């Protein structure tokens, strides 16, 4: 096409002007930007709360905040990071922007519903943040809202659960939209098995969003009903069963981990063949392993409950299933490594972030096996080992994949390029800061340091100090990275349509794309990663 005639979606004049052209946008790319800016802001808030906790823990006893404030901090840190950053993160931002483009579509199936999902997301997020401002104080239950404590505490649990409920609705509608888009909007000639692998991961994620989220929605309504009317679902004094809450909560919240990590795996699967200039190894195995993770991931929730009083038979059953879910995850890792083997590797920033992802995700995954086994899990349950494992999976996994994705696709989204040197420095600093922050938590976790505790024995201080230093490095690196990206967007060199020499459909259209992505029907290749 003639690039002189190209009008990008950013320049396109629609029905509305100014801010309204954004907040009422139905273009999937603009909605992706709306999510990205909101999520970036929430991430910074969550990171500041996390850093405050780290400063509190730099020495035993009270240092900068009171114990009740600490309880509120870890709860709101968890709610913001889980429900407002990590769950929507990759799916709502890069899924929205690139799913339609990668399958050769003009938009998602339901553009208006897509915009409504964002509004729901913002409304739910506003309610979650409002819990900080209420007289009753921020909820102190942890992001898991475990009963029976959550049925009795005087803090603002009802508002926080209502926020999570509304955020869940947003997630369901986004998932529904993506499933229909993949089924109905693929370009002519694009079958399921010549669809790129990021759409595969988003498709598997969307099924989890659609099927698992209603369970937590119902659970949170039951919790609200319990608090308001004393029905007795979960409170043993009223004949209820607190373990039932844990079952219902984790039936959603364990698959939710896969909502977070599956799109991350999809991103890495896009980046590795591009920067190795090699066809992805085991295409079908990677595609089907996404579905396998989504499917088996539904059946392993009980490994969060080994110490909750569950029956012995259920414990070994969940332990078995947990080990099985490691198989499809390992398939992906083996395929990524094999794709790199004898590839023409180009160590550009997205690939460095992708390598960091694999390293950190492997540590998170392997320590997960320690938690999947009943015997070892009981030893480290509710210790800082869990905190370390969880952050290696979620921040080391999803977080680094998000950073990889923004460095990979930013030239396409904005048509500008960032500074590679600063990007590399921020990637290495992030990696160092991250490991300094979380790895010591594995060690003191095994030694018995409980999670969510405001105070600790002096013997754990060495690790808490290292973690706090790591936290400062990490946050500084994040600020450097964001600065570099902003400067790239504002003053960076113009990016070409295909700066990485990629083969998937987004690299066949101008940067940034036009309103409807394709001016003519895209040419669909038999293998989307054909570098021959």
């Amino acid at each position, binding site marked *: 096409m003639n690039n002189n005639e190209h009008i990008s979606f950013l320049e396109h004049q629609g029905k509305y002007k100014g801010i309204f052209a954004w907040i009422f946008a139905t273009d999937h790319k603009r909605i992706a930007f709306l999510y990205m800016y909101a999520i970036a802001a929430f991430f910074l808030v969550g990171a500041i709360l996390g850093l405050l906790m780290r400063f509190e823990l730099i020495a035993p006893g009270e240092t900068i905040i009171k114990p009740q404030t600490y309880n509120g901090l870890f709860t709101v840190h968890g709610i913001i990071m889980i429900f407002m950053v990590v769950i929507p993160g990759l799916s709502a931002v890069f899924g929205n922007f690139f799913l339609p483009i990668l399958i050769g579509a003009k938009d998602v199936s339901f553009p208006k519903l897509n915009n409504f999902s964002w509004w729901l997301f913002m409304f739910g997020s506003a309610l979650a943040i409002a819990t900080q401002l209420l007289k009753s104080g921020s909820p102190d239950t942890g992001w898991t809202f475990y009963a029976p404590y959550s049925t009795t505490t005087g803090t603002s649990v009802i508002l926080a659960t209502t926020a999570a409920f509304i955020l869940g609705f947003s997630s369901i509608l986004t998932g529904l939209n993506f499933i229909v888009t993949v*089924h*109905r909007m*693929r370009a002519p000639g694009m079958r399921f098995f010549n669809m790129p692998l990021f759409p595969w991961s988003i498709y598997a994620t969307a099924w989890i969003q659609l*099927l698992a989220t209603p369970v937590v929605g119902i659970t949170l309504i039951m919790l609200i009903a319990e608090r308001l009317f004393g029905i007795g679902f979960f409170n043993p004094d009223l004949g209820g069963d607190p*373990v039932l809450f844990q*079952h219902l909560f984790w*039936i959603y919240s364990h698959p939710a981990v896969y909502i977070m990590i599956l799109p991350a795996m999809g991103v890495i699967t896009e980046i590795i063949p591009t920067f190795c200039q090699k066809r992805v190894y085991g295409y079908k195995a990677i595609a089907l392993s996404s579905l396998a993770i989504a*499917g088996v991931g*539904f*059946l392993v929730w*009980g490994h969060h409950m080994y110490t909750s*009083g*569950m*029956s*012995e*038979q*259920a414990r070994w*059953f*969940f332990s078995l299933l947990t080990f099985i879910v490691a198989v499809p995850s390992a398939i992906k890792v083996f395929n990524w490594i094999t794709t790199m083997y004898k590839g023409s590797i180009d160590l550009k920033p997205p690939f460095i972030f992708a390598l960091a992802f694999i390293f950190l995700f492997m540590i998170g995954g392997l320590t997960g096996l320690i938690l999947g086994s009943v015997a070892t899990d009981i030893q480290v349950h509710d210790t800082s080992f869990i905190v370390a494992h969880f952050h290696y999976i979620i921040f080391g996994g999803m977080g680094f994949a998000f950073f990889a994705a923004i460095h990979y696709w930013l030239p396409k989204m904005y048509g500008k390029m960032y500074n590679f040197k600063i990007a590399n420095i921020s990637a290495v600093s992030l990696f160092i800061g991250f490991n300094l922050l979380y790895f010591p938590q594995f060690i003191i976790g095994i030694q018995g340091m409980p999670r969510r505790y405001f105070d600790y024995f002096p013997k754990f201080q060495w690790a808490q100090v290292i973690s706090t230093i790591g936290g400062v490095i990490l946050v500084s690196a994040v600020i450097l990275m964001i600065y570099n990206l902003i400067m790239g967007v504002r003053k960076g060199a113009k990016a070409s349509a295909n700066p990485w020499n990629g083969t998937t459909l987004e690299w066949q259209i101008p940067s940034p794309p036009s309103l409807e992505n394709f001016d003519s029907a895209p040419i669909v290749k038999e293998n989307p990663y054909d570098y021959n």
Partner: protein
Amino acid sequence: MDNNGSHITEYKVLIRILFILLLCTFITIEITSFDLAAFTVTAALLIAGFKSYLVLSYFMHLKYESLLLRILVSMVFLLFFVIVLITFIDYSFR
């Protein structure tokens, strides 16, 4: 794609289904007067499952959709069944 064709269901079929659904609702209420012990919930779920099948098949036109979509919806029900079953592994042995 092979799913773009539309299908119009006759009114008399829809009305017939509506009456079957009302009958099922009546049975759901009446069956509570029998003491089915541990199978009370099972009976209610079976009737509700049959009603869902009718709604999905006729009112939501799944009957006229491609095999792939019918399999996907069936998988959802299978998943629900497996989750309930696994949960009761805990409750049955506790």
